[in-house]
């Protein structure tokens, strides 16, 4: 491919200086090397008529251009609307039309993406190669100068079409809708972590280790059975505000049990959690939770 920058100048200046597009077709190459800044020329030129085959009023041009997804799309449009074949593009015709568009855009000061100018250059380059005598020998058969452009147009058209099909698929939020029902009535079982007793004991050893280090904490060493009995007496007192002392002892627990209960009662009393009362001399001892001021 020849130098693109040159081609670009060629195209734009050609079309600018030669209003007659057919003339451009035949002269594009021979008059190629013009040095003027291309776009300035275009903007300066009065623009009086639209080519008939475009069918686009000038005020719609901007909107029109926005509907194209780039130069390939525009080219495809030019080809398809005339029922022309992609694979055998009348390159001179299409180039002329395409360049007319580019000129109009510039005339209307519509900012054109660089890709559009590049395509103009490519078209002009292809056109110029088409004008050159084609080698005839089968051995040296050079590819059709249009082949690469045709391939790109076809490839683009496939995806353009695929995009339309994609858009037509039933999709969520437009055609189909995900559903959900309320789950307020569903009772979710809470799953708790598993714990091993060993973990609890090891955690407690850590506590003890820390407590041993700080001397002011002295962890008392009552047998656990006493602590447990203390809890159970307190628990009973929550529902039964006055418990006869003897009922805190159970015969079947034997001597050991009685000792545990007694120690628990004494400890609770010492910690001022319960009080032991006797309503009349020699009356029955009773235990009740200690309530400082009758609150509760």
């Amino acid at each position, binding site marked *: 491919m020849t130098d693109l920058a040159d081609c670009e100048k060629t195209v734009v200046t050609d079309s600018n200086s030669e209003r007659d597009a057919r003339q451009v077709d035949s002269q594009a190459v021979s008059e190629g090397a013009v040095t003027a800044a291309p776009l300035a020329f275009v903007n300066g030129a009065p623009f009086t008529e639209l080519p008939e085959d475009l069918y686009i009023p000038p005020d719609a041009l901007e909107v029109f251009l926005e509907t194209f997804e780039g130069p390939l799309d525009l080219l495809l449009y030019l080809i398809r609307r005339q029922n022309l074949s992609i694979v055998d593009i009348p390159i001179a015709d299409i180039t002329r039309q395409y360049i007319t568009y580019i000129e109009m855009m510039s005339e209307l000061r519509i900012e054109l993406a660089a890709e559009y100018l590049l395509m103009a250059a490519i078209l002009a380059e292809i056109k110029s190669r088409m004008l050159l005598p084609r080698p005839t020998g089968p051995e040296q058969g050079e590819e059709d100068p249009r082949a690469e452009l045709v391939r790109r147009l076809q490839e683009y058209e496939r995806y353009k079409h695929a995009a339309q099909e994609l858009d037509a698929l039933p999709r969520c939020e437009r055609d189909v*809708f995900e559903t959900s029902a*309320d789950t307020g009535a569903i009772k979710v079982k809470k799953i708790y972590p598993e714990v091993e*007793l060993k973990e609890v004991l090891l955690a407690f050893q850590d506590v003890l280790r820390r407590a041993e280090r700080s001397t002011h*904490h002295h962890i008392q060493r009552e047998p656990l*059975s006493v602590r447990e009995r203390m809890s159970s007496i307190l628990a009973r007192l929550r529902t039964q505000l006055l418990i006869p002392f003897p009922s805190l002892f159970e015969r079947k627990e034997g001597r050991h049990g009685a000792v545990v209960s007694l120690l628990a009662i004494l400890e609770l009393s010492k910690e001022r959690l319960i009080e032991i009362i006797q309503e009349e001399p020699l009356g029955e001892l009773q235990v009740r939770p200690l309530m400082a001021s009758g609150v509760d």
Partner: protein
Amino acid sequence: MSIDVELKTIIEAALLAAGRPLSFAELENLFADNERPEPSEIHSALAELAEDCRGRAVELKQVASGYRLQVREAFSPWVSRLFEERPGRYSRAFLETLAIIAYRQPVTRGEIEDIRGVAVSSSIVRTLQERGWVQVVGHKEVPGRPALLATTKQFLDYFNLKSLGELPPLQELIDDLALQAAPQDQPVTENANTESIE
């Protein structure tokens, strides 16, 4: 669309797509002005829909903000599995608090804090109670009347103990500590970097 789409089915579609209760006005507004059914028709359609739901996974409920289709409670055993979170592990603080309550019960939160040397978060105590391992057995008659915490029968059941007496006595744990002065495996620290929940 097809002329014979039933009103009740349109309402069902809308309720399921919305995923929230729809008010009667919202149901009316599903329709263009010129094809809106009479309120009485919508009411009958709702009644039919409720009837259709018999034996199905959802039921039509009227709540304050309107009508909704809700999954029947009977499906909880299965559906709840969708929402169950994988349990994490309990934090160190949680296990220590539990151990202190087990060994020192009945005990107040303040006493636990004294022993651990740091504050005990209420969420730990709440979780222990939720799990049914700890209960309040009374209140200590000191200013503030703090709750006295003790372990429960469920606690014993979970750890397969007949009574707290089956826990190693405090003295034994302390003796163990002395032994551990010699370097030894510490399975405890495995937990150090695992996620923990309270």
